[in-house]
């Protein structure tokens, strides 16, 4: 690990001014991702601004029925919070399926949003990676790409976003609040992460000097009937091959509300809007689910190593929707 200067900030203004004008400074929260990347010399900040003492640890009900989550709320605390468990079970599920108990005790909401890819080539500093070293190429394209993206990929990058939590946030239409010396800004979740295009090193719409301060969840009634499923190579403590966050309301036999997001398939938590369009107003049948899943995955581009993800994503969507219908009936 390279040496760096260390600053501990006690309030948000101090934190954001500490990083302003220092392009190679980084905020450090739980450390579960950044310290790992620093250990591998993938990230080499010259200054670390420790933000763990900032007062951003609240989980509060908003007047409109939504919930505001401080950026430094630990994953374990968020998953266990009564407001989240009752109103957004999908978010609790997604968090609890990530990492391990120890890591969830460390990882923060803000850090989870900024988690970087687990691409094998991104982690191998001897490999070509446009994300780590812009312009160096992408060894994943012709290499081992079983874990890689199938949606929104470019010729420059096949990396996936590794978070489980973010898939639920995307499905819930969360808003990310960020702050810098220039003021406060609110970014819709769907615009927070960006696709690789020609600039895979740009992963979010966050400016280098901006601090994530909170995530706000709108009131989402249909979230009461929601589900997160994760398909992975090991029963625990492994990244998703494919994951699905879904919420569904069926009135009579017709889909009257639906939200779908996919994980493990793209550089961003993938809101499955095409599938949602197909489903809305359609009969809540296996056939509709299949059509919706196929519609979403129609744009997928796979390599030989990750071609299986297309079918797997489709079947996982269908399985989750089917389960939500059954669950909705029972309720």
């Amino acid at each position, binding site marked *: 690990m390279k040496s760096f200067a260390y600053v501990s900030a006690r309030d948000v203004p101090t934190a954001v001014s500490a990083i302003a004008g220092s392009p190679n400074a980084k905020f450090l929260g739980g450390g579960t991702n950044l310290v790992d990347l620093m250990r591998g010399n993938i990230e080499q900040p010259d200054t670390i601004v420790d933000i763990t003492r900032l007062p951003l640890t609240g989980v509060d009900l908003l007047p409109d029925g939504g919930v505001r989550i401080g950026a430094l709320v630990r994953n374990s605390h968020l998953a266990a919070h009564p407001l989240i468990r009752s109103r957004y079970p999908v978010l609790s599920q997604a968090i609890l399926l990530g990492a391990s108990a120890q890591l969830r005790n460390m990882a923060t909401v803000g850090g989870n949003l900024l988690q970087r890819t687990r691409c094998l080539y991104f982690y191998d500093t001897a490999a070509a990676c446009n994300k780590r070293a812009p312009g160096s190429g992408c060894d994943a394209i012709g290499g*081992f790409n079983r874990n890689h993206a199938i949606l929104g990929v470019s010729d420059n990058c096949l990396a996936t976003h590794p978070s489980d939590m973010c898939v639920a946030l995307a499905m819930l239409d969360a808003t990310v609040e960020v702050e810098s010396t220039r003021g406060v800004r609110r970014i819709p979740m769907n615009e927070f992460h960006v696709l690789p295009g020609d600039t895979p090193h740009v992963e979010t719409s966050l400016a280098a000097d901006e601090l994530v301060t909170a995530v706000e969840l709108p009131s989402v009634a249909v979230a009461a009937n929601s589900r997160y499923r994760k398909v992975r190579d090991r*029963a625990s403590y492994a990244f998703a091959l494919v994951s699905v966050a879904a919420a569904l309301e069926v009135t009579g036999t017709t889909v009257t509300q639906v939200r779908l997001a996919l994980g493990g398939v793209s550089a961003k938590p993938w809101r499955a809007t095409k599938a949602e369009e197909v489903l809305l107003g359609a009969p809540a049948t296996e056939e509709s689910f299949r059509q919706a899943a196929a519609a979403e995955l129609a744009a997928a581009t796979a390599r030989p190593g990750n071609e299986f993800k297309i079918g797997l994503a489709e079947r996982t969507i269908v*399985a989750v929707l089917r389960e939500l219908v059954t669950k909705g009936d029972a309720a």
Partner: protein
Amino acid sequence: MTTTVATQGGIGTNAQRPDGALKARGEFAYSSDLWHEDMVWGVTLRSPHPYARITSIDITEALRVPGVQAVLTHEDVPGTNIYGLEHPDQPVLAEDVVRYQGEPVALVAADHPETARRAMKRIEVAYEVLPPVVNTEDAAHGRAEPLHPNGNVVRHVKVRHGPQDVRADVVVTGEYEVGMQDQAFLGPESGLAVPADDGSVDLYIATQWLHADQRQIAVALGLPPEKVRLTLSGVGGAFGGREDLSMQVHACMLALRTGKPVKMVYNREESFYGHVHRHPARMYYEHGATRNGKIVYVKARIYLDGGAYASSTGAVVANAATLGVGPYDVPSVTVDCWGVYTNNPPCGAMRGFGAVQAAFAYESQMDRLADAVGLDPVEVRIRNAMSEGAVMPTGQVVDSPAPVVELLTLVRDKPLPAKGNDLTDMPGGVSNTTHGEGVVRGVGYGVSIKNVGFSDSFDDYSTVRVRLSVIGGQAVASVHTAAVEVGQGLVTVLQQITRTELGVDVVTIEPMDTSIGDAGSTSASRQTYVTGGALRAACAAVRAALFERIGHTDLPLDHDKIVEVLGTDVIDEVVEWRHRPTYRLDPETGQGNAHVQYAFAAHRAVVDVDVELGLVKVVELVCAQDVGKAINPEAVLGQIQGGTAQGLGLAVMEEIQLADGKIRNPSFTDYLIPTVLDMPPMVIDVLERPDPHAPYGLRGVGEPPTISSTPAIVAAIRAATGMALTRVPVRPEHITETS
């Protein structure tokens, strides 16, 4: 023969580990925990290329880094720059060519590990990169550039048994593949070398075989063996991965050069490059049988990828070939097994050692045969099962119990587990990936045979010293051996044997080091057999010395009598003990009494498969194993559970991913091993059918369960899915792919 008074904690009891409290307190010192005043840290510069010519090495800039104590290359190897477990072919530090990614090229010692790493990056190595040889079959058949002077075939074992070219009514064929597995022990390689004033060196190291290390280090350092003293440190798991040298010579070189103690610790990534792996295999099998399912012949071609250097490939090849038809009576056997050099990472010992790969193929074939003749998978195995007196494909007669039928019957007859309603029991764990829809249960079986101890004419022995004295009115036996404890519980077993043989309660185990004779490797499931045998013989010698003092030999030996007779005297006996000799396989026919003992285990696996998403939950594993005599029944269960889990890992998740010779997943995030959620509860039957040739009738325990669990689990997945599944590990996409 004299009876001794049974004391507590003798053989057959669940005596507790003497190192248990230290381990639970965090006070047990592993090699990575060692520390010495004035010590410096060593690091290793490794080749980034699987195959390249080195055109120059420039260490000038590295030497300029403040805090650097030494930078060494092949030019600094004091002795012979070549070593190897079976035959020397591997440079201590690469000279003109590197043959695998991760091959050591240079060493740095500095006063801080970060300084050493920084200096390491300033070493300039110019490489001329060459296209790597990665295809095993090309390497075996002369279709690849030779990587070593004698070509790419490390060993080709031919087994020709019975009439050749026979025909059968029913023929089943198959092609099978086993991926490269890693031992993945939790404590990465580490060691501390301490130089002495006389030019000798002490090395504190986590290893499986102190004397083999010592011999190889001495040659590389150009020192007589007695000037290279090794002491075992705490070993954080081994499983075969510590049988070859890692940093042993490197640490000693740096210590001798700097005159300071040198500590080296690999990190997890380096550990993937720093030890050998399980040979990946490609296997072509043909079984001929009668319509009743009786095997008429087996023909097999087995290719094992040895990677860049030989390590123990020769012995692995012999195992795969001689055990290649499994624990079955086969009247006609034609097996060819090749172990070859490629530019993949070197492969060598891992639990199961050649038997694992073959068992996946031959057990898969047995299931195909069962299908072909319309028999139950257990029934077809029972019809062909070997038993005591059977003739192996090598011509060797099995002259001790071989209760294969009984083991199969035991696992078959266990009640099947109920289908779970608990969602956390479903495939995918608590993620509740399914609520039970699309979940299909499957049951599969596997049975294995493994040789115990070193085979093929190897002079396999152990050395033990026992001292008996009276300390504070109490008789105390102390046991000294170079046989190493790696977690399997050898120290417990040595105490148990001593208590039983000498009738004393207090048994201390001396540090394991090279100040006593060779004990052989902690591998091949052999230590309880061989070092246990040596210990029993040493205790007998101590007893004889006691009896001599008493003047007669027919009284029971008890504690008070020992104290009375011994007084202030010390009895000290050293014994070197061998099992019966084995013989070299005939190079043309593979015939010969190559193995000293066979061990057998059977598994039944029950799996739930989410066929929609390809997820597998191993619901239950049943194992029956014959151990001859369970010296410590609890430790036996631990070995069976541990071995089974590593077989489970190979079945459904573990593989080192290689692309053009490069390891793509050298981490525990990308190379997955089973967690507590993946490993189901086990139901275990331990049989004790004594081997009349072995001490206490015991049989080696550690390896057989690793071998049979993999095919049993894959068979269960096949039963659930109907998929062919000819390659391990089986991944979700293999289950869901449409075929």
